[in-house]
């Protein structure tokens, strides 16, 4: 029996990626076993699966022989509290990293999402305004290349400029450059106090919060057709400090201070099976982007303080003449992409239901694509890792 037979099992009904069924599934238990698996899987098309919370992001794989599941690559290897860093295996659920004693990995992510998946998708939530994203908090990484070579980049110190910052390249690469098996993250202290300010206010008023010296940890907008737009601001710090700042912002926005987040906080604005779009733009263009998105019938949420928004609508937008909504979704993406381009950013369709997905250009235009293809060619010349799921068909 070969290594592949030992490490894999036949795929089941649940082992499907965007409608494409896999043939085999393997869940390696450590980096060495994962490398042996990848070596043995030469010639097979591979998709990596973490918690599966974003497995439907991106186009379907062109081919799929093997799903590498990271469910057993788990555990906190090291938590050096005095150095504010942690070393974790890629399959570790984010819930575990949100509960480190006295410290936190300040990345918003669903509890079931894994550390590796969060890095691979470069997912981020409201607190990116204060703490940055996975690309900013990742300081070291272990990756198995498609040719089965185990490689490391970065290290265990926050300040490090030795060699290329490959952690950034793997962040947001959607598993197209190899399998992440271990991550080193920078941590932050858990703040002594945090409060929210909620207000019914147009997105334009977010600029008032940013222009004040409030040091907000997040400044989120929520807008939907036919509803008053809302803003919510998160403040963190000492109990007295946050109370004072919250009162000032509440007055500025005509809002209310509350200890809890609004129900829509960090909740994707698309229903299961709906269309989800990530919109980015320059900060001053956020109000225009929100207005355009709401105009297409979308619910919009996101960081008015960092220029990253999410728009969502059901598979068939309201008033859609076509029964399957295909035409409408395509038109909405077109309008949003034009608006995002005007705003100096991009519109990327993260997810869409089968039937609609095939009609959409999910990634849209990508500057620097020729260079990206050359990077892929170097790392994965046989184009086996997540084939067709990334920009430009990479």
């Amino acid at each position, binding site marked *: 029996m070969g290594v592949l037979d030992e490490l894999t099992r036949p795929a089941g009904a649940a082992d499907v990626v965007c409608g494409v069924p896999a043939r085999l599934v393997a869940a390696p238990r450590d980096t060495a076993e994962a490398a042996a698996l990848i070596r043995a899987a030469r010639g097979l098309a591979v998709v990596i699966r973490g918690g599966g919370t974003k497995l439907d992001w991106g186009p379907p794989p062109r081919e799929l022989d093997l799903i590498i599941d990271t469910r057993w690559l788990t555990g906190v290897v090291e938590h*050096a509290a*005095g*150095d504010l860093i942690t070393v974790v295996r890629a399959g570790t659920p984010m819930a575990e990293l949100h509960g480190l004693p006295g410290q936190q990995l300040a990345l918003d992510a669903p509890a079931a999402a894994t550390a590796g998946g969060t890095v691979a998708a*470069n997912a981020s939530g409201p607190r990116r305004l204060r703490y*940055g*994203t996975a690309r*900013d908090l990742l300081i070291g990484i272990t990756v198995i*290349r498609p040719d089965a*070579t*185990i*490689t*490391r*980049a970065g*290290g265990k*110190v*926050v*300040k*490090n*400029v*030795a*060699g*290329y*910052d*490959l952690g950034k*390249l793997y*962040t*947001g*690469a959607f598993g197209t450059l190899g399998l992440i098996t271990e991550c080193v993250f920078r941590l932050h202290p858990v*703040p002594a106090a945090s409060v929210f300010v909620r207000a019914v206010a147009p997105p334009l008023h977010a*600029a008032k919060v940013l*222009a004040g*010296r*409030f*040091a907000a940890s997040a400044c989120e907008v929520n807008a939907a057709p036919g509803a008053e737009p809302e803003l919510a601001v998160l403040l963190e*710090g*000492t109990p007295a*400090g946050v109370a*004072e700042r919250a009162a000032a912002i509440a007055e500025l926005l005509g809002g209310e201070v509350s200890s809890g987040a609004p129900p829509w906080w960090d909740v994707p604005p698309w229903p299961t099976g709906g269309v989800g779009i*990530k919109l*980015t733009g*320059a*900060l*001053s263009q956020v109000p225009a982007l929100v207005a355009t998105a709401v105009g297409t019938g979308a619910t919009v949420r996101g960081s008015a303080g*960092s220029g990253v928004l999410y728009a969502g609508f059901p598979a068939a937008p309201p008033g859609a003449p076509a029964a399957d909504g295909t035409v409408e979704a395509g038109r909405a993406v077109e309008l949003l992409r034009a608006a995002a381009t005007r705003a100096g*950013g*991009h519109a*990327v369709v993260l997810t869409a239901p089968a039937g609609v997905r095939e009609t959409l250009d999910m990634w*849209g235009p*990508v*500057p*620097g*694509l*020729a*260079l*990206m293809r*050359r990077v892929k*060619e*170097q*790392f994965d*010349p046989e184009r086996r890792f997540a084939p067709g799921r990334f920009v430009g068909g990479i």
Partner: protein
Amino acid sequence: MTGIDALAARLRADLGPDRVLTDRQQLRTYECDGLAHYKVIPALVTLPATAAHVAAVVRACAETGTPFVARGSGTGLSGGALPHADGVLIVTSQLREILDVRPDDERAVVQPGVINLQVTKAATPYGYYYAPDPSSQQICSIGGNVAENSGGAHCLKYGFTTNHVTGLEVVTPDGERVRLGGAAPDAPGYDLLGAFVGSEGTLGVATEVTVKLTRLPETVRTLLAGFASTDQAGAATSAIIAAGVVPAAIEMMDALAIEAAEAAVKCGYPAGAGAVLIVELDGPAAEVAAQFDEVSALCAEHGAFETRVAADDEERALIWRGRKSAFAAVGRISPDYIVQDGVIPRTALPVVLRRIGEVAAEHGVRVANVFHAGDGNLHPLVLFDDAVPGQATRAETVSAAILDLCIEHGGSITGEHGVGIDKAKYMPRMFSADDLDTMQLVRCAFDPDGIANPGKVFPTPRLCGERPGRHRGAHPLHATDVAEIF
């Protein structure tokens, strides 16, 4: 006409005659950067005035297989901008326009030759500043900061250059102008921007940089604490971090560094201190006040015998003057010195500082320590007198041993100065052959012919076109004695 003469003629036609230097005396001006003991006279120097000029130079280099090196203000301390003897030096210091300051977008768009501090000066009237502040911020250029991913004291809280660059226009080694990122975050596709920042000129030349502007804090408070020893100051640093306070900066100087600073700028640090800490807190007033009390108490608890608080900007500047002048000041107490740059986990500070002292004593040289204590970025200054036979060699031995200490404790061989030519030979001590090979996959994607700043960062180049992982054993260049493996 030699190849270089032909290239010079072509570039004079493209850029204008005054922008291409071939006179040996003029070329000599550019023979080194801030690391002056490496000197190489370039074959040709170009002074482009536009991004199109830069692209024209690089294209000409690509077509003729000529190596090129980009150089900003030349303040680098790892020989990253050391010229290539047969190559073209591209000096970006004339690309020095601040193209746009957009406070509503919290962005500024600048050319690579713009001086770091000028960005802050341009943004301050709007209530913003540019957070990464290398100690050389009065003279270093943004392009150089991007190449080296250099940072300074405030990077502990705010991150370094890579966290503050959102867009670049770069000229790739084939002469193409490519935009990576922009004013908006999270551009789709591979994060080539993230790979480019800190690539030390080996992936191309930045011709336009979009940076993030940071809101000026409501309050800044700076304190100076004197301790009997670096152990005490190190323990106070750890206690501050453990208490959940992230200061804007925590800097430490030991007795020798204090002595040098006093001799140079009379900064009036506490008399008899074996170490001083400078702690700067910034943010909302109430937060800063609470943290300030906590920091003061922790310093006292860990043996601070004197604590001073800057009452105004002038006093604050005086506290910083000693720290910022320390490198140059060491020149007053020693004829020669090596500035080392390594990083260790913060918790290893006491043991590593003690080991540095022991190693220095063993070799009969003195080491002054002045560094970013908050993030473990050491800057030991190894003092020596070149006139005394053998001292320079001993200083180099101590300097190398310090890097080994950093690696041994899980740190890095450079925190802000870069690898350049100076530390290329140390890269294999920190990274495996496979790790270095992986970095060179990126190099091969950008620069298959290896003409962008060759000889820097990597001790031995990879031959692009090899399939990854299929070549084991001796590197072909090594096997044929073309390159040496350190």
